[in-house]
Each structure stands twice: as structure tokens, then as C-alpha cells.
């Protein structure tokens, strides 16, 4: 079944047929759905099959095929999030949805890398969100129990047959600017006051302001060849603090990203290999906003637009995709 936006009635039918689904939509439409084998998160922004869209009436559906062997749906908070790895099947994947800027969001982002067995199976997912012009609250949904949570994460674990395996791919349009100074942080944190810039103790907010750096560009760290972004949320010059959408980590070396002249063109080039048959994919709200992706089509990119992407760990300004392949 093609992943795309569907009407509420159609989604109700799918749930009643016993399909295993990962859903994204406005709280008001997700709340109308019957109980069943589904999880969901709130968001009204999507990359649909034809273009980027804002919709509070339709629901984006990813059918999680190959789920005949086993599924489990588990709610997580800060007390049990580190069980997520053990809750997964020996061969399969986990799809996780987290509410933004709650303790669970914070804890998962900071702890994920230290979880034993994190890479045994793909953990993919997203941080849910809201209409940026409204005063809504973001929620996650456990379709099995019919409950919704403003402060808990929800995951569906899928067991794959022995003949298949799941893999994650990320598409990042940013890369380190080689001319950028090297930045190292004292602590693992979503907030930064001082850091080492080229080895010198410096206030990051002041540095960014004085050098007139574009805060639409993320900080980038190199993970053995993978460029991992940390996006800047806000700069509080009064207090000298920079807030981030994902944590920076002590011991990692970061650089500012190279600037991009044409956001959309860059996306088109970088996502040329994007697999439109992926079981799941999502893209960042910052890419959607800064790239002005509403009403635009880029290759065959699809999926919910998110307040954070998960590919084993919390990522920013990145397109994440999960596919299931034959062994």
C-alpha cells in the first residue's frame, strides 16, 4: 500500500481490516480513529506523493508490512526508555514517536548513544509537533489502548521474517564548512553557554552574533563519515545562551555547516537515491520551512514533516528513511 495522505474514513477502514499502521496527523483527526494495531503522532505538515502540504483533515499513513511474525506496541517515558532496545525483536525494527521538549525527548536524545545494543536493529522515528500558528499541544497516540500522551513516547516493534532485514538511510544536505573553527563542548546538553572554539574558551552566543553566522545552518559533527546535524533553536544574547534542537556531546568536534545557495536544488541532488518504496520516511520541519517545501515536489520524497528525526539517535534537519530488504 502506498504511503501517503488518506481520509479519516479510509484510515478507519484500514485499522478495522487489522492493518499495522504508523500514522501522522492533526490531533483532532487522530482522536477519531478506532483502536487497533497503530501508533501515531500529531503534525499537520507533510510531503505527500505530489507535493508538500499542510493538512488538518487528512492522515499520513505508513503501512508496516512484513509484520506477520510479531508486533508489540509499548509506551515509554523517562523511566523505561532505555528498555527500548531489549523490547525489540531479534530481527526487526522499531518505530518510535516522541513528544517534543518533554523529559522523554531530552532523555532519549542524551542517553541513546550509551544504550547497549542500540545498533542491533534499526530504531527509526520522529518527534511529533503542531501547527506553528496555533496553540495546540503535540501528542503521541497508542492505537492499541486508545490513549494519547503529551509527555510519553510510543513505539511499535516489528519482527521481520528470517529472509528479510531492515536498514536506515539518512539524507543530509549539510556538510561541514572546512573554513569553520572547530567547536568542542564541555557537557552533553541542549543548551550551551561557553565552549571551546579553536581551543579557546568562548561564549557561543556572542561568537555567533559577532561573526553574523546564519543560524539556519546547523552545527555538524562527523560520525565516521556521517554528517550529523545539531540545529540552533534560539540565541539568547541577553543571557549568553544558545539553545539547540538536539544535544551536542562532549568529546565530539563540531563545525558550522557550509552555506547553501539553493536549498531545493541541494535537496534534489542529495536525495537522488531516495527509495520511494521505503517503509517509513520523514523530513525535518526546518528543511520544510527554510526550503519552502510547501507545494513543492522534490524527487519522490514522502512522509510526515517532523520536529526532530530519529535514526538510532535524535537528528536535526535530516531526511530519514527505513527500508526492508530481502537477505
Amino acid at each position, binding site marked *: 500500500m502506498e504511503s501517503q495522505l488518506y481520509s479519516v474514513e479510509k484510515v478507519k477502514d484500514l485499522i478495522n481490516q487489522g492493518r499495522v499502521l504508523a500514522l501522522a496527523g492533526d490531533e483532532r483527526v487522530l482522536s477519531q480513529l478506532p483502536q487497533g494495531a497503530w501508533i501515531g503522532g500529531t503534525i499537520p505538515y507533510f510531503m505527500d506523493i505530489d507535493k508538500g502540504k499542510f493538512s488538518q483533515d487528512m492522515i499520513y499513513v505508513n503501512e508496516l508490512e512484513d509484520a506477520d511474525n510479531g508486533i508489540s506496541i509499548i509506551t515509554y517515558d523517562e523511566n523505561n526508555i532505555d528498555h527500548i532496545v531489549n523490547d525489540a525483536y531479534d*530481527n526487526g525494527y522499531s518505530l518510535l514517536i516522541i513528544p517534543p521538549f518533554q523529559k522523554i525527548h531530552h532523555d532519549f536524545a542524551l542517553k541513546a*548513544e550509551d544504550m547497549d545494543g*542500540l*545498533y*542491533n536493529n*534499526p530504531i527509526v522515528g520522529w518527534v511529533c509537533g*503542531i501547527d*506553528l*500558528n*496555533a*496553540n*495546540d*499541544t503535540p501528542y503521541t497516540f497508542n492505537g492499541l489502548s486508545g490513549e494519547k500522551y503529551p509527555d510519553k513516547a510510543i513505539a511499535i516493534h516489528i519482527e521481520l521474517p528470517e529472509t528479510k*532485514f531492515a*536498514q*536506515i*538511510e*539518512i539524507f543530509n544536505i549539510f556538510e561541514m564548512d572546512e573554513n569553520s573553527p572547530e567547536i568542542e*563542548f*564541555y*557537557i552533553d*546538553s541542549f*543548551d*550551551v*553557554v*561557553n*565552549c*571551546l572554539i579553536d581551543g579557546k*574558551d568562548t561564549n557561543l552566543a556572542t561568537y555567533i552574533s559577532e561573526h553574523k553566522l546564519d543560524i539556519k545552518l546547523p552545527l555538524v559533527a*562527523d*560520525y*565516521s*563519515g*556521517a554528517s550529523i546535524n545539531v540545529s540552533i*533553536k*534560539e540565541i*539568547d544574547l541577553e*543571557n*549568553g*545562551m544558545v539553545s539547540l534542537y538536539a544535544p551536542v556531546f*562532549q*568529546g565530539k568536534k563540531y563545525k558550522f555547516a557550509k552555506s547553501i545557495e539553493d536549498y531545493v536544488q541541494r535537496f534534489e541532488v542529495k536525495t537522488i537515491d531516495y527509495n520511494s518504496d521505503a517503509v517509513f520516511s520523514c523530513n525535518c*520541519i526546518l528543511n520544510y*520551512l527554510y526550503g519552502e517545501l510547501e507545494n513543492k515536489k522534490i524527487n519522490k520524497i514522502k512522509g510526515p514533516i517532523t520536529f526532530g528525526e530519529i*535514526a*538510532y*539517535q535524535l537528528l536535526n534537519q535530516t531526511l530519514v528513511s527505513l527500508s526492508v*530488504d530481502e*537477505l
Partner: protein
Amino acid sequence: MIHIPPKERKEWRDLLTGQINVPLKNFFFQMKITQAKKQVEKAKVTVEDAVDEIYELCVKFSKAKYMDVDIQNIFGTDNHSGGKAQDTNLVEQTIEEKDLIDTKAKEKIERINELRLKEEAAKQQRELDNQREAKQDEQSTKLDKVEQIRLEAQRVIQQRYEMELAKRKMESKQKAEPKSEIIQSPEVRKDVQNFKRMEEEKQRVKQLKKKKVVRKKKSGFGSFFKSWFN
């Protein structure tokens, strides 16, 4: 089908200790190696345990995208049994395998592969032994010294941390000042300085976050969300 080289191969260890530093392409491999390097560096796992885990996962995800490219970049071209990587030996192996197909081929191929792996492992081991013997004195001295410095540095950092927390007086700080040459090395001084800065940074962030929470409560949840993107 890609062949994952046996875990006895030196390259696995070199990958974790930074002696091999090739940019990887497969996402799982990139993330796993980064995590394992960090764990090894912080002495949370041994290199051997990390290699065991990575090897098993590479076997599990051997068909994942770019895994063949990464393995080839790390181990060279003799680890493939297909595509561009075929060399003379592998062509011979393929012919041999075809001949054997009608006569209990599977068993024999398995045995051959097993022997080859053992030979390869033994060869690697011999090479390692030779290298180890040749450099034994030099290496052990170096390693001892590195380990000694690391342990000493850890000890000193911990000592300083406790001192900071207890807010001891300057006299007792001076009393506990490192005296040996190792402790007074620039690296250790830098670590201690960074540790102090880390504690200071924690305090600064904590204080400012408190301020922010108050502001958030005043402005309400909806406008807080909206403000992120303005």
C-alpha cells in the same frame, strides 16, 4: 554476496583504535563505529568485545547498502566473491566450486572456506605475534606509559572534581597539587582546566534554564512553541 572478514583480522582493531580512519558510507556502520570508539576510549568496553559485537552486526547487516564498499575500503579487494572485486584466486575458487557442485559441493566448499578462514586467521596471528615480538619492549613501555598517564589523569580529574564540590580552601588545594612529572604534563593540566570549565558550564546552563522556565510559564505553552521558529 559480501564476505565479512574474520574478526581475527587486524583491521577490525585498527578501525577502533584510529589506525584505520576511512570515512564509511553505510549509516549503521558509521554510527556503530563512532559509538564503539567512544566506548573503547572511555574504557567502557575492551577492544576485543567491541570487535566481537561489530563483527556480528556486520554479518547480520552484510547486505545493507554500501556495506560492501566499506568492507572493501577497510580490508582491500580480497573480501568479495563477486562484482569488480574478483581477483585470480576468486576466479579459481569459482571454477573449483562449479566442479564440486555435483559431488557434495556444499560440504567441500564449506570445508575449504573453513580451512581458508583458519589459515587466514593463523597467518594474521603469526604476523601479529612477529610484530609484537619485534616491538614488544618498545610497545609495552609505551602502552604502560600511556595507560599510566591515562589512569593518573583520571585520578587527578576526579580529585579535582571532589575538591571543587567540597569547596576546599586554597591551602588544601595546593597540598593536593600533582607533583610527579606525568601529573604536571600539559595534557593533564588541560584536562583539569577543561573539567573545571565543564563544572562551570553546568552551573551556568542550570541557572539560565531556571530563568527560562519562569519565562516560559509566563508566556504560555502555545506562544513558546511559536517562538522557536520566529
